[in-house]
């Protein structure tokens, strides 16, 4: 089982969390401007790397807050993401 560090509650067992998939997938600024291909990509396609992956977790059985971590999908090593890694929404 993964041990996950909630930024507010500290290290907790995976069963206290729900997974949210890839981080930094913003709702399109102007959805109507997207063609079918771009909209399909937004809806259905996410990165699937072997290696470091910025991802979302929510501490459902604790503080119920969402946060982002970076996990290596080959080793399950996790580290907190630095706030500066957040790409600003254009």
């Amino acid at each position, binding site marked *: 089982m993964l041990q996950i560090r909630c930024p507010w509650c500290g290290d907790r067992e*995976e069963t206290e969390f729900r997974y949210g998939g890839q981080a930094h997938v913003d709702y399109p600024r102007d959805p109507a401007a997207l063609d079918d291909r771009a909209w399909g990509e937004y809806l259905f396609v996410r990165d*699937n790397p*072997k290696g470091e992956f910025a991802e979302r977790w929510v501490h459902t059985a604790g503080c119920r807050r969402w946060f982002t971590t970076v996990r290596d999908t080959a080793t399950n090593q996790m580290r907190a993401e630095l706030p500066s890694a957040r790409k600003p929404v254009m």
Partner: protein
Amino acid sequence: MVTSRHALPDPPARLWRNPEPKRSYDVVIVGAGGHGLATAYYLARNHGIRDIAVLERGWLAGGNMARNTTIIRSNYLLDASAALYDHALQLWEQLPDELEYDFLLSQRGVLNLAHTEQEVRDSRRRAFANELNGVDAEWVTPDEIAEICPILNTSADLRYPVLGATLQRRAGIAKHDHVAWALARKSDEMGVDLIQECEVTGFLTEGDRVTGVQTTAGPIAAGRVGLAAAGRTSLLTDTLGIRLPLQSHPLQALVSELLEPVHPCVVMSNHVHVYCSQAHKGELVLGAGVDSYNGYAHRGSVHVIENQLAAAVELFPIFARAHVVRTWAGTVDVTPDASPIIGPTPYENLFVNCGWGTGGFKATPGAGWVFAHTIATGEPHPLNAPYGMERFTTGALVDEHGAAAVAH
């Protein structure tokens, strides 16, 4: 539906050559799992293409083909799925003779349990849809279930009582390793080069064509390339800038010690989330759903195992005294609609067969048949026409999530 303990057939001494790769092939298949092997087999058998290499990074059929729980069934809800999976089941029924190899296909029947009123309605709807599509399906009551599978707890005092089930009598299990070896032997006999420990690391391209693959054994030129790399498919397509809607997850399973035959069929429960059969040798084989997170580590989290054991003991009280001997995980490539992606790509001579997720073993011969057709003709077979990657742009999904939540 009676099981008895079977001695496994002794594998023949030598099943395939271990050739050095040539510098060039008409067709290169990436991945020697069940699907890659079946594709090579049908390319040679149905399309007369013999100059084929199947490149495998590890050992032959050591990926999900070695790790799955071997459930075969075709009782899917949607027309496109019923057609695809039942075609596969019909091929299964003729393959032992055709491959001259008894891989212990056992059509012992699969019960899909319903535990809530809504599940009863959904299950009956699926059984009716199956009948309309010519797929054998029956609705059975708790009393009938008790006769088919006496060890199942059908009493009313379960937390989630069994209210009924669908039964597909033609469904069952087979010996996965032997299936792979049977396909490998026949493909090899027809001239296919099966090359182990040869990882594809990228592609050689010219404009919108691939001209070959880059491998750990050097470059290999190819007229056409077919990907059958399961959980690692998107690592390859990423190098070409093709973004596929795949997420690779750990999927775990487990076995007990060898027991006398107690479990005559296959039982699946979406609601309490476990499925179980008893293998020919005698071990109970259990599985459930994927671990929630993406991962290539070939391991999952132990609470996923605990949850399915709790569900199994509730449904089968006599399992309380069995032991878990082994757990393991594969890496399965899951799509947003729980259906596979089989078809062409933006590169005119590159084709993909992926996204089978938690349930592609049952499709092994069918996937090979339609993928071979797609590679040989450049066009999808009618059975895989609905399964192209363009459905994620058009929105014409083949959404089997509701119908097949425990999708194996």
